[in-house]
């Protein structure tokens, strides 16, 4: 053994000496140009591969490499947007001039592949599929959030932005959901080191939730995704590894895929030139889609305005918009746009880079200032600074450091099911009520003055003893504030040592730390927290990551080479939340301070997770056409139960065969490259921390003894007590297991003019963690257990084509298409598990259905024996004789049966159970991008298509109750005779309290309506038939009957959320010709205009269907309930490169 070490050291020394043995050297210089235009290419990389010596071209495209020992080398020239060129070159003792012309790579098919560990590899040798997005595509999108910048750009990657709030986060999901309650987001790795993309959602009280299973906040603010702290302008490329087959090396954090991000680095320049790039991106944001509201009928009910002395003056009448037909002269307001304005943002970025053959650096600074489309208190500002330095101490030792600091400040307005939310009060406001002014002086009957009270449509006088019920949108946007200040530092160091040509040792150290200081302030006059509420919460997360990697490669024979890698990974994540909630302000308008309150409750939460793993990767290359790779990771984590195996092994293997390199394949002009591939991988999803042991809880506050009826006792009032947690810790808890098989092919036709990739995959999750109910008599009520199973399978197709390439004009298209089928196959006997939402409608896991199906109340549908509708009475008892029954004589309820009606003909809510009413899973998704280039002018058009996928429009369901929805502006006239033969809901069920059932004519008479001169009645409503004859649908069917989601089933409010979206249109012109460069001394100037979300074609009737009430963190989706609206943007870009 000692002998070997000695040999090793000797070899190392020999290697070090070699550099000084050869005294004779030469210089290589030349010029790099575009083969089509002949223009010189500044900034291209020129490297002698064997000795890793290189340079980059200057402003005139010239390069120079000095001190080259004699020998035969491979000269590689690469430049963004051009195909890489390799050329063998002999260097003797004299200097050589060598010019190179590069061919534009319009499709980007030969890009470098970045492996799970962040190393570069040849894409054509990979046995797994992945999608690559170039940094330029992200920065050109004009999005200041990396995630939304990736929208529609990669197959199998679904990105849903949660709202149009500035800085709003987005939910990313790759190839479907692999877990029920665990994390669904992929792992983000920047420059080889994992970083946070956590989203800690805040409830309306401002407290962040960090619970296993994700939060279920149907209110609060839309939070950021932490990955957006990374300035998109600093990104060089994004590689998306879609699942265990490609990402298994990250073990129990890899099941949802890994997003590998490479940041921009400096490149060597000649004659110490500095590369300076400046960009300025300004944008104009406007509201995109709003729910449709009616402006024809006013506040009130039964057709009377609240001012009506007999029928109007009640709180019900104020609440509803079932009042009189408005006179055309009455001013009306569009409350969906009340507090909406145009938003602007300005994003300036400056980077300086350069270096020589040994050292390169890049410094960049970016400043984003954005104001949202909401009138006040909606903004997102981000300042980021990045420094990146690489230095080669010798040809054997390289060191690099990347540092990133960002500060972001945001102001947000609350959303969702929240009386202080933006849209909840706004959309419910009657069209004839002016929400301005938001404040009013109130004088009580005794003449006492109460200045500056909140005025809302339910409390127009601002009476302080009556709540405003819902905050006036002008009030909520001005006086309720939600601030978040984030300071984040992340960076990494890398030390790489090559003792010999075949061995490399790399160490990477990463640190990621941020503090999110949130302050949520609800004014003392707010509806949600009368008296006021102030929450201060400091959230801090720190992640430390270390990787030590040994790599060796060997060429065994001409036909066989291989490499081996052994690595050790250590990762620690630490989260702490510390804050106070204070309620009841002593001074209503004092600065936000916890001690300005009657009640102050501090809180603290901490969690620490650690992972340690050894991993390996072995690869072999046979005959330069068969590529085999196997990886394995042995991992332990602090979240695995002490009674579990503690260490889990995650293997993967892949095989790629370039059949076009086979001897029998004699080059074909049609198919110039072909590869088939297959892979298998296993990865996991880590359990949440602290689920493995049983805790004792202080039986106070949220852990007090609260029974299901609302009564509670708090042990602190009885001397203080701790009770054992009713949720049992499970020491046998282990990571969820995801196994994936993938097959596919990558083909290129007509000399790389067309590229086609196809992948098919199957994934199975076992041991998914559920909170399983156990008998309470065991001392616990539930226990986390590895109990559920899911599966996913799908197809992905990526096609790129270069239709035209003329000397001045080109047209390329790239299309990605994907389809994923998800199914929850086993829920351990539990029928359904709530993921997010309300008790009425929610997103649930249901056995046999895709994860996240929409669950809610339905129409009653008794199976009929004769096709005629089954008739029931008001109690739901069957009163007709045509209901099909089962063997026990019980009537059968079938989802496919016609709607059951009552004896008057109105539909009836199924009183027995809730069920699946929709599925947010799209049938397929596609992104189609066309790029046209004429000389230096380029036009890119990206269309994003989502086919199918339901959204529950809870907003419409609620507005139907209030009578403000745009559908509800009907006016119908019927004769008195017809009216006396029909029933409306209010007459049938006597909402007027007359003591008897009335037909529509009697009903109208009872409420004081007389027929017009022609003997007709005109009413707000319509006549329809639910299967057993015509009924009158008027307001009573909406606020008392089954047609609104407050009073009836949720089923009718599920809508198709499919869309076709003009996601991006960008037009750019580049000034970079010789004359321009000579004149200005600049390398280039790009000017461009981009439009985002300009056109949306959808049948969805609410806000943009790309929305999710419960944010990024919760596992449920497909719910819309007074979500904040989204935007479309015009973006103007100027880039100057020196």
């Amino acid at each position, binding site marked *: 053994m000692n002998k070997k070490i000695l040999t090793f050291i000797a070899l190392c020394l020999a290697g070090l000496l070699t550099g000084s043995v050869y005294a004779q050297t030469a210089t290589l210089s030349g010029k790099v140009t575009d083969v089509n235009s002949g223009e010189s290419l500044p900034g291209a990389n020129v490297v002698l591969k064997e000795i890793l010596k290189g340079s980059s071209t200057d402003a005139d495209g010239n390069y120079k490499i000095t001190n080259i020992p004699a020998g035969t080398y491979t000269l590689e020239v690469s430049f963004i947007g051009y195909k890489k060129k390799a050329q063998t070159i002999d260097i003797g003792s004299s200097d050589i001039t060598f010019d190179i012309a590069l061919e534009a790579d319009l499709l980007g098919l030969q890009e470098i592949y970045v492996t799970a560990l962040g190393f570069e590899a040849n894409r054509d040798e990979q046995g797994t599929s992945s999608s690559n997005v170039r940094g330029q595509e992200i920065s050109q999108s004009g999005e200041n959030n990396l995630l939304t910048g990736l929208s529609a750009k990669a197959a199998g990657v679904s990105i849903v932005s949660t709202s149009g709030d500035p800085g709003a986060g987005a939910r990313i999901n790759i190839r479907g959901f692999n877990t029920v309650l665990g994390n669904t987001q992929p792992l983000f790795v920047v420059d080889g080191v994992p970083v946070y993309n956590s989203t800690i959602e805040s409830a309306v009280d401002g407290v962040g939730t960090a619970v296993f299973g994700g939060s279920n906040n149907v209110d609060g603010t839309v939070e950021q995704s932490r990955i957006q702290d990374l300035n998109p302008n600093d990104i060089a490329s994004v590689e998306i590894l879609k699942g265990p087959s490609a990402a298994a090396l990250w073990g129990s954090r890899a099941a949802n895929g890994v997003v590998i991000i490479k940041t921009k680095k400096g490149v060597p320049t000649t004659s110490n030139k500095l590369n300076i790039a400046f960009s300025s991106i300004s944008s104009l944001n406007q509201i995109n889609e709003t729910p449709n509201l009616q402006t024809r009928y006013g506040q009130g009910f039964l057709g009377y305005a609240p001012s009506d002395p007999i029928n109007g003056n009640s709180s019900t009448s104020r609440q509803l918009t079932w009042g009189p037909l408005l006179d055309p002269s009455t001013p009306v307001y569009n409350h969906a746009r009340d507090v909406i304005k145009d938003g602007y943002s300005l994003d300036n970025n400056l980077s300086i880079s350069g270096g020589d053959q040994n050292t390169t650096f890049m410094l960049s600074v970016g400043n984003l200032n954005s104001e949202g489309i909401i009138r006040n208190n909606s903004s997102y500002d981000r300042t980021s600074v990045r420094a990146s330095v690489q230095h080669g101490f010798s040809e054997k030792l390289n060191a690099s450091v990347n540092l990133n600091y960002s500060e972001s400040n945001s102001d947000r307005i609350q959303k969702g099911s929240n009386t202080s939310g933006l849209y909840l009060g706004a959309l419910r406001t009657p069209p004839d009520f002016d929400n301005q002014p938001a404040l009013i002086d109130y004088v009580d009957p005794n003449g006492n003055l109460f200045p500056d009270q909140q005025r809302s449509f339910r409390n127009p006088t601002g009476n302080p003893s009556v709540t405003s019920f819902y905050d006036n949108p002008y009030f909520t946007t001005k006086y309720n504030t939600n601030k978040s200040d984030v300071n984040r530092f992340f960076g990494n160091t890398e030390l790489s040592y090559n003792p010999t040509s075949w061995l490399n040792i790399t160490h990477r150290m990463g640190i990621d730390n941020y503090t999110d200081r949130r302050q949520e302030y609800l004014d003392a006059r707010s509806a949600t927290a009368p008296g006021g509420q102030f929450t201060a919460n400091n959230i801090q997360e720190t992640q430390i990551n270390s990787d030590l990697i040994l790599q060796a490669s060997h060429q065994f024979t001409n036909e066989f080479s291989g490499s081996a890698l052994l690595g050790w990974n250590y990762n620690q994540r630490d989260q702490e939340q510390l804050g106070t909630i204070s309620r009841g302000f002593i001074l209503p308008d004092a600065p936000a301070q916890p001690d300005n309150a009657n009640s102050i409750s501090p809180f603290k939460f901490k969690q620490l997770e650690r992972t340690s793993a050894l991993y390996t990767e072995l690869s072999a290359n046979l005959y330069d056409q068969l590529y085999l790779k196997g990886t394995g990771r042995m991992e332990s984590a602090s979240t695995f139960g002490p009674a579990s195996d503690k*260490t889990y092994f995650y293997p993967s293997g892949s095989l790629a065969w370039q059949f076009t390199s086979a001897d029998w394949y004699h080059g074909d002009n049609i198919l110039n490259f072909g590869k088939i591939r297959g892979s298998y991988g296993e990865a996991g999803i880590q359990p949440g921390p602290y689920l493995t042991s049983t805790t004792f809880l202080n039986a106070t506050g949220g852990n007090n003894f609260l*029974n299901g009826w609302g009564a509670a*006792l708090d042990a602190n009032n009885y001397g203080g007590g701790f009770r054992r947690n009713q949720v049992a810790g499970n020491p046998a808890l282990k990571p969820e297991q995801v196994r994936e098989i993938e097959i596919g092919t990558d083909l290129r036709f007509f000399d790389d003019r067309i590229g086609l990739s196809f992948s098919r995959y199957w994934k199975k999750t076992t041991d998914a963690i559920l909170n399983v109910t156990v008998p309470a008599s065991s*001392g616990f009520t539930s226990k986390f257990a590895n109990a559920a199973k899911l599966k996913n399978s799908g197809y992905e197709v990526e096609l790129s084509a270069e239709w035209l390439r003329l000397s001045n004009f080109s047209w390329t298209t790239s299309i990605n298409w994907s389809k994923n089928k998800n199914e929850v196959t086993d829920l351990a006997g539990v029928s359904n598990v709530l993921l997010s939402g309300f008790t009425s409608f929610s997103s649930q896991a249901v056995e046999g259905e895709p994860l996240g199906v929409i669950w809610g109340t339905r129409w009653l549908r008794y199976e009929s024996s004769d096709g005629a509708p089954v008739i029931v009475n008001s109690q739901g008892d069957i009163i007709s004789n045509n209901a099909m029954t089962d063997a026990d004589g019980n009537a059968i309820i079938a989802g496919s049966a016609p709607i059951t009606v009552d004896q008057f003909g109105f539909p009836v809510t199924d009183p027995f159970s809730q069920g699946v009413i929709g599925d947010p899973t799209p049938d397929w998704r596609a992104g189609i991008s066309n790029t046209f280039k004429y000389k230096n002018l380029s036009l890119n058009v990206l269309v994003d298509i989502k086919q199918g996928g339901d959204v529950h429009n809870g907003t419409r369901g609620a507005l139907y109750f209030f009578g403000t929805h745009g559908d509800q502006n009907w006016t119908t006239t019927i004769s008195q005779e017809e009216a006396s033969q029909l029933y409306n809901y209010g007459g049938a069920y006597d909402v007027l309290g007359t003591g008897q059932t009335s037909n529509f004519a009697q009903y109208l008479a009872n409420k004081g309506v007389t027929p017009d001169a022609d003997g007709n009645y005109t009413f707000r409503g319509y006549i329809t038939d639910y299967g057993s004859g015509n009924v009158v649908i008027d307001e009573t069917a909406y606020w008392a009957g089954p047609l609104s989601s407050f009073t009836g089933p949720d089923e009718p409010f599920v809508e198709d959320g499919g869309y076709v979206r003009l996601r991006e249109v960008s037009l750019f012109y580049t000034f970079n010709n010789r004359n321009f460069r000579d004149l200005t001394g600049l390398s280039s100037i790009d000017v461009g205009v981009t439009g985002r979300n300009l056109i949306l074609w959808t049948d969805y009737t609410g806000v943009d269907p790309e929305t999710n009430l419960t944010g990024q963190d919760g596992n449920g989706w497909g719910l819309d309930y007074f979500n904040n609206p989204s935007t479309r943007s015009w973006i103007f870009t100027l880039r100057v490169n020196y």
Partner: protein
Amino acid sequence: MKTYIIKNSMVVLLAFMLVMLSACNVNEEIVSGISEDPNNPTDAPAQKVFVAGQVASLLVHEGDADWISNLFTQHLTGVARQPAQFYGYSINATDFNGMWSFAYSRAFTNLKLAEGKLLTGQENIGAVIKINRAMLSGQIAALWGDVPYTQAADDAIENPVYDPQAQVYAAVIGLLDEAIQTLSNSPSNLPNGWDVFSYQGDAERWLRAAYTLRARYKLHTGDLAGALADAEQGINNNTIDPNTGWAAGDLMAPHGGNWRFDMNLLHSELVIDRPGDIDASASVAVTMTRPGGTRENAKTDEGDGRFLFYFTNEATPGLNTNDGGFFGASAPFPLVTYAENELIKAEILARNGDQAGALDALNNVRAYNQSRFGGTYDALVASDFQAGGAYANTTVLQEIYDEEYLSLMGQIEVFNFVRRVAYDSLSPLLNPRSGASTIPQRYRYPQSELDANENIPSPQPGLFTKTQANGG
């Protein structure tokens, strides 16, 4: 060359495997020691767990299990929403999830855990915990019949078996035997901070309560002689405690008026959580205690003292949820009382034919009532029940039952009493709207247990099936 490669590959592979295996342990070492929750402890001392267990028990004795009992016994009237349905005996297995979960996963578990944490020298605390456990399991068995006891809250057992009701009663009596023995031998008071009830750690009062409780459960199981002997040593202090307004010997749960902190749970339910769902509009107790009602005669004039303690004096009497009323926000709640103890004696003596002895005990209660509520409760004598007497139309036993029906008002125990002696067959306690022929005879097993415990009795006994102790 080839063998060289193979040989070296084998060495490398072997070395690699060794590294992997040893790294396995190193990795486990590195991640160990931080799996414990830094936010919540994984254990707590006996005192704090006992306090939690007692408070949780109150959610059983005083919570929904209690008001549903009193709906069934027609002390309370359900008029809206679920209480209206329960009042008509329409009550499902899911309606029992909450109280069962509280009884076992909160109360039973923490009392048992607390007992297991005691040290030598804390025997008198152990005795009080046993009394609490007996009171809890006794009521669980009385309400549900066969229930988990021996295997309940045992970490090694996921599906506890259901012990026969008689065995649970025997175990409850056994717990009380031990408590009585301990407290008799060393009657030292508990340190401060352990006892959340009105006794505040007074060992002598706990000993008396233990005797009364043992009498209660012996009576449940038909051991009349044993029950009588225990009642003789049971709660005897009938001076009115000015703090509670009840007898000084009564075991009371103290309350403040703060909602969700220490508010009387019945008040919380009636006034804050479900206002308007429950009233006294059809309460049998109203007709019995109302001034000028059926119980007024030459010997007895209750006046309005007792009536106004429970009800309000209106055309349609309501429940007295005001300060000083039984349902007041900070009204203490009775768990075991002097009146119950005396009435156990009275009932047994009457059933044994000792009319004079029975009347003595009943008269103790009447005297106590008079000192609490005012009015006239003259001592009764045998001749009162003979022709011409004020109670000629009734029997001593029936009068004792009527007094039990009123004295136990508001407690689960009144439901146990009504079922035990079939008081509903003597008085019309049946809800006429229900269509049933008897009032409910037990609580249903909860849905959560039906779903999760494979040992639940099959077939399920119905709501109207008597428990074994009551002849089922």
